[in-house]
Every structure is written in structure tokens, then in C-alpha cells.
């Protein structure tokens, strides 16, 4: 299988620790997944609300660049950010479904010297870890079993909706299986795919803040001592606003929220700095086996 890595803009900013820990974990597992040369913004949620066709063309440019790297096998493009994963998949589907859109995008790409034939496969790292690498290989790489760590696996919206075929849309399991393979306990909780508020936390704070708070409160109630996320915006909302939540809701909420790849890195015995633990607002040291 030939992989390329599409980090997306957030993983070079607020979600830097996701980028660092993912690359470190790839390395530990002997995976070859270099960064897609010349990648640009995927188009994301905000762009989609200004001009949909342009957003699709932006996403398609990345797919065209990835396709250029095709050898005998098609490229599997790994997109860890939930929004990138959704948009890249969406443009694939929509180009196949809507002839007019396909034509506009194909002609526009051609004008800048690019082509896209629809051969790239967009993959989420959860899918790659569980279905390509396999849990046995992950287990074998564990040097520090995460004993006593109770993880609320939080998938968020756009990893599983509406396109993911690798997991269940209502009760996904891949992250839970991964956490169990690391020696941690995946906590059973019902809000795995409920929205964190997305960009509302920045635009209509009153609504966004409460949506994230509901998730943290429920995870704590279910006995979790850490929450694992698979999306840079979810991680940002759930972690960086906890101080504000304490003030707004008069609650003592204080739950570490880490990228699932940071938790993997910890179990693999990787150095804290390599997996970006120092970048977290809520220190993970308090959680068992994470110090």
C-alpha cells in the first residue's frame, strides 16, 4: 500500500501536536507516509459557505497532486483532520455524481496544468491503523501499557459522517479498539459522535461552549480520566475552553483531552516532546500511565 500524508492547515497550527504525534507513530510502526508535496487548504467548512465550486476545486487540486505520485498502485491519502477528511471525500463523491461539477473542476484544473482521474483513496488514520496495520502489530509495539487509563473515545462528526465506510456511524468502534490494544480501558459512553460545536465556539460562543461542556461532563460521569480526539477543532474546543466553562457553568470540569495518536505514542514509549504533550493546556500527567 502506498501512502501520502495530507496534514491540512490546522495540523500546522493549533493541532500541531496531532501532526507531531501522528508522524512519530507512523515512524514507530515503520510506515512510509511522506507529506503530499505542494498541498493547499482543503476548502473546509468556511470556504464551503462562500463558494462551493471553488471549495471543491481547492480540494480537488490536492487529489490531483496526490495522483501524480501514483505508481503501479493508487495512492492512499491519509487525512487526519476531520474537516479535510470530509471535504476530500465529498469532492470525490460529488465529482462522480454531478456531471456539471466534474466538468467545471476538470477544466479548471487543466488550466493550471493538472488532471484528476478519481483514483486516489482518502483514508483516515483510524482506518489505516485498525484495518491496514492491524491491532496485533499495534499491540506488539506497546512498551508502556496504559494501565488504569480510562479513555472516552470521541470521534466527533465529520470523521464518521456522512462518508466513513470504515466504521459505524452511530456507535463507531475503531478508536475504542485501538485504546484497548494499548492497554487502556475504552469507556462506554453515548456521545461519541455528538457535535462539539465546531466553529460555533468562535462565532456563537454561548452555543458552542455548552456543546463541548456536555461532552466533557458526560465523559467524566462515565468514569473517563482522559478524552481521546481525532480532530484538531474538537480538541481545541474541548481542551482550550475548559477554563471558560468552569466560569460559565460553575463546574469544576478538568479533563485532559489528547489526540488519540498522542495516547498511542505514550504507549509506544515515545518521548513526551516528540508527541507534543507539552502543547496541551490541561496536563495529561494527572491521568494514569500518561506521566
Amino acid at each position: 500500500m502506498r501512502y501520502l500524508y495530507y496534514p491540512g492547515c490546522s495540523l500546522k497550527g493549533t493541532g500541531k501536536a496531532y501532526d507531531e504525534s501522528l508522524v512519530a507513530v507512523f515512524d514507530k510502526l515503520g510506515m512510509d507516509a511522506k507529506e503530499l508535496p505542494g498541498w493547499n487548504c482543503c476548502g473546509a467548512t468556511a470556504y464551503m459557505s462562500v463558494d462551493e465550486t471553488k471549495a471543491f476545486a481547492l480540494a480537488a487540486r490536492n487529489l490531483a497532486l496526490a495522483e501524480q505520485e501514483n505508481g503501479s498502485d493508487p495512492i492512499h491519502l491519509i487525512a487526519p483532520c476531520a474537516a479535510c477528511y470530509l471535504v476530500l471525500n465529498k469532492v470525490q463523491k460529488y465529482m462522480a455524481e454531478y456531471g456539471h461539477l466534474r466538468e467545471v473542476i476538470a477544466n479548471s484544473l487543466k488550466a493550471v496544468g493538472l488532471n484528476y482521474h478519481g483514483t486516489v483513496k482518502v483514508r483516515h488514520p483510524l482506518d489505516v491503523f485498525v484495518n491496514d496495520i492491524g491491532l496485533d502489530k499495534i499491540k506488539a509495539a506497546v512498551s508502556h501499557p496504559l494501565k488504569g487509563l480510562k479513555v472516552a473515545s470521541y470521534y466527533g462528526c465529520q470523521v464518521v459522517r456522512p462518508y466513513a465506510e470504515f466504521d459505524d456511524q452511530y456507535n463507531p468502534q475503531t478508536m475504542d479498539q485501538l485504546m484497548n490494544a494499548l492497554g487502556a480501558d475504552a469507556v462506554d459512553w453515548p456521545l461519541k459522535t455528538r457535535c462539539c460545536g465546531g466553529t460555533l465556539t468562535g462565532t456563537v460562543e454561548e452555543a458552542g461552549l455548552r456543546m463541548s461542556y456536555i461532552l466533557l461532563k458526560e465523559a467524566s460521569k462515565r468514569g473517563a480520566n482522559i478524552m481521546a480526539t481525532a480532530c484538531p477543532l474538537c480538541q481545541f474546543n474541548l481542551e482550550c475552553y475548559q477554563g471558560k466553562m468552569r466560569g460559565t457553568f460553575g463546574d469544576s470540569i478538568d479533563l485532559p483531552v489528547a489526540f488519540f495518536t498522542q495516547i498511542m505514542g505514550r504507549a509506544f514509549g515515545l518521548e513526551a516532546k516528540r508527541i507534543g504533550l507539552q502543547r496541551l493546556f490541561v496536563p495529561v500527567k494527572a491521568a494514569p500511565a500518561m506521566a
Partner: protein
Amino acid sequence: MSSLQIQVRIKHQEELDPDFANSIAALPGGENLSRCIQCGTCSSTCPVSLYMDYTPRRIIAMTRAGFKQEVLASNTIWLCASCYECTVDCPREIKVTDIMYALKRRAMEEKVYPKRFPTPVLAKEFFKSVLKTGRSNEGLTVTWMILKTAPLNMLKQMGLGLKLLLRGRMALGVEKMEGDPTQIRRLMEQVEVEEKKTH
């Protein structure tokens, strides 16, 4: 005896926009608009419907009936966080999230949204950043959004910005794509050319 006092509570059909539904249904993702059976699954599954002036079910009904003005001025379309729950759950396969996007774009085109409302400003700042550098720069985009919508909030947000900065989670410099960012501008311009050709 005085007669019963009445007033028109909703619009007469002649006051509605008969083309509104078709213009939305014609966009990618809008095709199943007319299949709605008003079951309300979208509204019950929506995590933000409790704040909306019209629930998603009502927005679909009103869009279909031609209540253009009310739909475009509603807070509903700006509260949609694009979680796709309604799209996945709709028994009639209506892509509700895509319809919300289409309505947001229409509202921006027609400039009907609350003044100083941050969402459209955020979207436009995002667009500008990508056009210039090929990437979205979170720090700059959000800073501009705050300055343009609620400059007094800048002070409140500075603590968060500083914390991000100290942890290396916000780049001070501008993140640029590798290669030639003008290719992005040319690609976007070509999309406009191609769209005109096919219309």
C-alpha cells in the same frame, strides 16, 4: 357587537417567491428537497435546534414553499455547525447540511445577515487567506474576524492567543504552501470562467 378581529399570520401564496425552491434544489445536494415528508427527524437530531428561530424541518418546508426572506434572515442557517447528523438520519435522503450551506451562500450573496455577525466575516477572511497563501492561517483569520465584528472582545481573547503562542500552537509567521501560491488564484479564477461557460 364588534366583529372578530383577525390578521394574516403567514403570507398569502402570492407574496411568496415561487422560484426560490427551484434555485436551491438545482444545486448539488439540493435535489431531494421536494421529497420531504415533514417527519421532523432533522429537528430532533440537530444539536443546535434549541437555539434556532426556525427548526431545520421548518426551514425545509419554508424553502419549499418560497418563504425566501424569512429563511435567509433566519439564525438557523448560521447556527448549523455542519455535523451532518440530519443528512445521515433523513429517511428521505435529503442532504439537509448541503441545503443549509446553499442558504448561507444565498444569504451572503443577497447580503441579508445580522450586522457584525461573525460567521460570514470568518468565512470571507478564511477565503482571503487561502487565496493569498494557499493555506488557511487560523490565528490571522480569527484575529481579523474579531477586529471586524467585536473589537472589544480582542482583549478577552488575548489570553487564549498568548497561551496558544507559548505552546507553539499558533504560528506568528504566515503559513504558506510549497510551490507557487499564485496557482491557487489562477485556479479560482478559472472556476469562475468555467461556471460562466456552462450557465
